[in-house]
């Protein structure tokens, strides 16, 4: 990539920041060139972000119907999946899966709830009453 080919496509995600990209400048020497973004990268990042938003929205609807626990909403809000939450909490996947259900979540011991509060960085009140996703 030549210096003048480095994309400057203002990736909104960077919030005005720039990223270091390697490109060939004058005289054929390599140098770091700051890039304000490349659409290709922005599409891929936003796709991953949107996928979590979609999962969060589905979880919220199912929480409103008392099928899912609020934990499921928070899991996706914190961009976690079942395996990430299991790894971070130290609970087995089958345990987490159970805790994602409305009924079993309500009977969780306060010790287990403590673990989730720490992992998700939320208060008890926030955990139990997630706001509707935007």
């Amino acid at each position, binding site marked *: 990539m030549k210096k003048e080919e480095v994309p400057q496509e203002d990736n909104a995600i960077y919030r005005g920041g720039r990223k270091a990209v390697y490109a060939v400048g004058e005289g054929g020497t390599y140098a*770091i060139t700051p890039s304000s973004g490349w659409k290709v990268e922005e599409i891929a990042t936003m796709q991953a972000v949107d996928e979590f938003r979609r999962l969060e929205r589905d979880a919220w609807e199912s929480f409103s119907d008392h099928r899912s626990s609020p934990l499921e909403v928070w899991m996706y809000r914190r961009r976690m999946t079942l395996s990430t939450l299991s790894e*971070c909490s130290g609970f087995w996947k089958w345990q987490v899966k159970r805790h994602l259900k409305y009924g079993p979540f309500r009977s969780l011991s306060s010790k287990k709830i403590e673990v989730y509060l720490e992992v998700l960085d939320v208060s008890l009140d926030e955990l139990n009453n997630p706001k509707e996703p935007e």
Partner: protein
Amino acid sequence: MESFTHRHSAHCESGVVSSLLTYAGFPISEAMAFGIGNGLTFAYLPFIKIDGMPLVAYRMPPKSIIKTVKNRLGLDVVMKKYSNASSAQEDLVSLLEEGKIVGLQTSVFWLPYFPPEMRFHFNAHNLMVYGKNDEGFLISDPVFEEPVTVEFHALDKARFAKGVFAPKGACYYIERIPDGIDLAKAIKKAIKKTCGMMLYTPLPWVGLRGMRMMKKAILKLPNHPHKRYPSLYLGHIIRMQEEIGTGGGGFRLMYAAFLAEAAEVLGREELKNGSGMMTEAGDKWRQFALTASKVCKGGELIVEEIASKLQECIDAEEKVYRFLRGLKL
């Protein structure tokens, strides 16, 4: 010792290594640190899942650049882990008082200065702490343009995130740099090793063989039962290649910069040709990402076209490694 200056880099680990070494009195570019640290690779591990996607890596696993550079140059590097956040913070403060610049391993998700859309649960990010004030620690994060201040508790949270690659407060700093480092020797060794790995690895998931495996997987995408999977899968590859601080083209362009620098150090003009070939490979990877992104945008699933772009990357890379091996460095 010189005073510390923040340097904007493409990748966190190579950026930290280059900054730490430069500060300690051995000036070295990020590309050089990446090259002699054997940072470049390709791995496709379908049996390891990240958020349901196979692991795709364009560089060696976390910590390997630091460890390789340390061994290859014979540096005295201290690496520590902690059982709790308070002792980690106390130790960090006392190291800063001794005038050390300290490298840390952290999570990306819990760093407050990261743009919200870029926060994912990746626990092997690297940054440096170069001081503190009343508000918090002064952080030089190589992938950002300017240094930042992070509030004490927030940094603890990022240092003690749990899950895969849990940092456990890991920190490292350079204790001593030996005299008479033979950079030329380190470069030759590193290039030979990278070429050998890319061409002749016995594992089917690594090097050119890994790329061929990924190509096969892409061609099978239309058979996947979940409708959204192909698009998410291709998006995942693009992110690993472009988003996570690779300097463009999945680290290939940074490696090309390394080869150009190596040509100067070794006085071998032919390495410049190698650098040019590597640039071509990097550009092909950018083309591949561009083509794949059409699917992510909601376009048709053009697997044949994407796979043929990937084949061009494979051919371009094979050409560089064979050329470099032929140089008999």
